[in-house]
Each structure stands twice: as structure tokens, then as C-alpha cells.
């Protein structure tokens, strides 16, 4: 007879913390969800459509300073109070708007003169490529003549001079 009837515990008792320590995490979650459902049914809410908060384009500004870009109130003229005049130079005398000069010149990496020199030699070397064979021989002779002229002078310079007693 003792094993047949089990005392039924109420739901509230089961929801108490000390009863839930032995439960699994899953059963805990189920219990929580059930609780939430109960709460949401009893919870009162307005059955109105959501009102969007209107973004106001009006900003309230109570001070005049930013509106008219006012100057600082303490001024000194003609060096009467150097402590104020020096840090606040623009308060006494109006700042002249400095014109910003725009540099239109782009600094080139290579100057114009260098460019011209290189171009001269460039034209010559590439021109030689397209010369016919006869013209190439002429060029070679010219080069040799030029070299032979310089050689004896070089040899003369290279001779060893004996020291005179």
C-alpha cells in the first residue's frame, strides 16, 4: 500500500529553487519557458500600432557664440595689456585672411636639360641600328681614327720618367 500512492507535489513547490537543483538542464529550460508564457499572458500591453519617434530637425542652441562666430570678450589694444594681447592677437586686431597659394608646378623628377641631352644620344644610338651595312663600316672607321689619335698621346703619358740626379 505504501508503494501505490505517491504524494503529488504542487507545481509551485516544484518551481522552488531547492527542488530544481536536482533537475536536468533541459527540464529547467522547459520550466522557465512555461513560466515566461504564464507571465506574458497576464502581462498587459497596449494594443496600438508602433509609433515611430519623429526625428526632430530642430536643435536648440541657447548661446549666441556659435551662431555668429563671436570673438573672445577680452581685448587689449596697442599693447596696453601684453598678457592679453599676445595670446589673443586676433581679438584686438582682425586676422587678415591669408591667401593660400596653390603650387601649380609639379616638380619633375628629371630636369628639362637632362631630358634633352639624353634624347640626343638616344636618337644616335637607335639610328645606328637602322643603318645599312655600308654606312656602319663608315662609322667604324671614324671611330678607329678617333681612337688612334688618342692612343700615342696616352702612351707618351704612360712612360716612366727616370729621376734626374
Amino acid at each position: 500500500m505504501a508503494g501505490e500512492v505517491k504524494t503529488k507535489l504542487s507545481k509551485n513547490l516544484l518551481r522552488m529553487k531547492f527542488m530544481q537543483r536536482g533537475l536536468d538542464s533541459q527540464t529547467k529550460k522547459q520550466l522557465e519557458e512555461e513560466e515566461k508564457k504564464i507571465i506574458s499572458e497576464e502581462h498587459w500591453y497596449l494594443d496600438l500600432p508602433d509609433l515611430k519617434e519623429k526625428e526632430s530637425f530642430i536643435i536648440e542652441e541657447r548661446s549666441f557664440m556659435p551662431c555668429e562666430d563671436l570673438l573672445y570678450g577680452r581685448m587689449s589694444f596697442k599693447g596696453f595689456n601684453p598678457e592679453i594681447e599676445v595670446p589673443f592677437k586676433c581679438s584686438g586686431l582682425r586676422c587678415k585672411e591669408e591667401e593660400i597659394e596653390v603650387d601649380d608646378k609639379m616638380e619633375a623628377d628629371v630636369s628639362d636639360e637632362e631630358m634633352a641631352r639624353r634624347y640626343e644620344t638616344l636618337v644616335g644610338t637607335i639610328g645606328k641600328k637602322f643603318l645599312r651595312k655600308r654606312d656602319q663600316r663608315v662609322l667604324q672607321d671614324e671611330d678607329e681614327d678617333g681612337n688612334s689619335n688618342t692612343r700615342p698621346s696616352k702612351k707618351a703619358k704612360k712612360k716612366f720618367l727616370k729621376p734626374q740626379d
Partner: protein
Amino acid sequence: QYVPVKGDHVIGIVTAKAGDVFKLDVGGSEQASLSYLAFEGATKRNRPNVQVGDLIYGQFLVANKDMEPEMVCIDSSGRSSGMGIIGQDGFLFKVSLGLIRKLLAPKCEIIQELSQLYPFELVLGMNGRIWVKAKTVQQTLIVVNILEACEYMTAEQRKQALAKLSGK
């Protein structure tokens, strides 16, 4: 009537000294409070030398309709930047708020023309108070009269008046 606004620079007159706090008359509906620590380089031991009746140039830290306005003579970085006790001598007078705004405009001819006359010092408070100090009492009074009259004079009249003065 001046309404205190946060960030505005004003000239205040010290009316009372209540322990650590000074009460300043700012020309508004309420008196403003100023703590003695709100000066540059002020510590508990190194207190600023402020007496009743002194003039102070400071800005509002707190100024709304629910609370008593609070002033400081120090800016957010801890420097005085021109604020603090205004020195001895000089002349304090009141003008309308509109004239102050006109004078503080970026390109104000009145101030430009006056600066050509002779050296002097000028402090403009947004509460309608102006403090002037020049070398002699006469010069000070001349500047005061011009500033007061500027409200109702046209540009031509003003130039005439200044020409007379510079001619003298």
C-alpha cells in the same frame, strides 16, 4: 534682462563670500556661484585673493532654469585663458545685449576704429557689461561714451566723432 547660458563669458561682481564659494551678481534673475578652486593654480592652501566688490570674468559651467548658475574662471584644459579677476581701476558700465553681440562680431568696425585711437583694454561680457581701462581717466571716459553712443549712431556719425577726437 540677461539669461545665463552655458559657455557664455560674462563679467560678474562679487557680492558675498560664503566659505569656499563666492556669490556673483551676473545681471540675471539669480546670483551665480563660483568656487575658489575654479581658478588657475588654485589649491586648498593657495586661495585666490578675491574680495567682495571685485570684478571677475568667467564662463558658465552650469546654466539651466532648474539650477543655480555656476561659474568657473578656468577652461576645460585647466588654463585660465584670459579669465579670472579683472584688475584694479577701469570703468564698468552696462549696455544692451544686442550691442555686445554687434561688438563681438568678427568684423566690427567700431572696435577697429577705436583701437586706432590710443592703447586701452576692453572686456566684454555677454551679460551686457563692459569694462574699459585706459591710461588716463579722460581717455577711459571717451571710450565709454563712444561705446554707449554706438548703439544709436550711424556709421557716419561715429566716424565724424572719432575724427574729431583723433584731431584733438
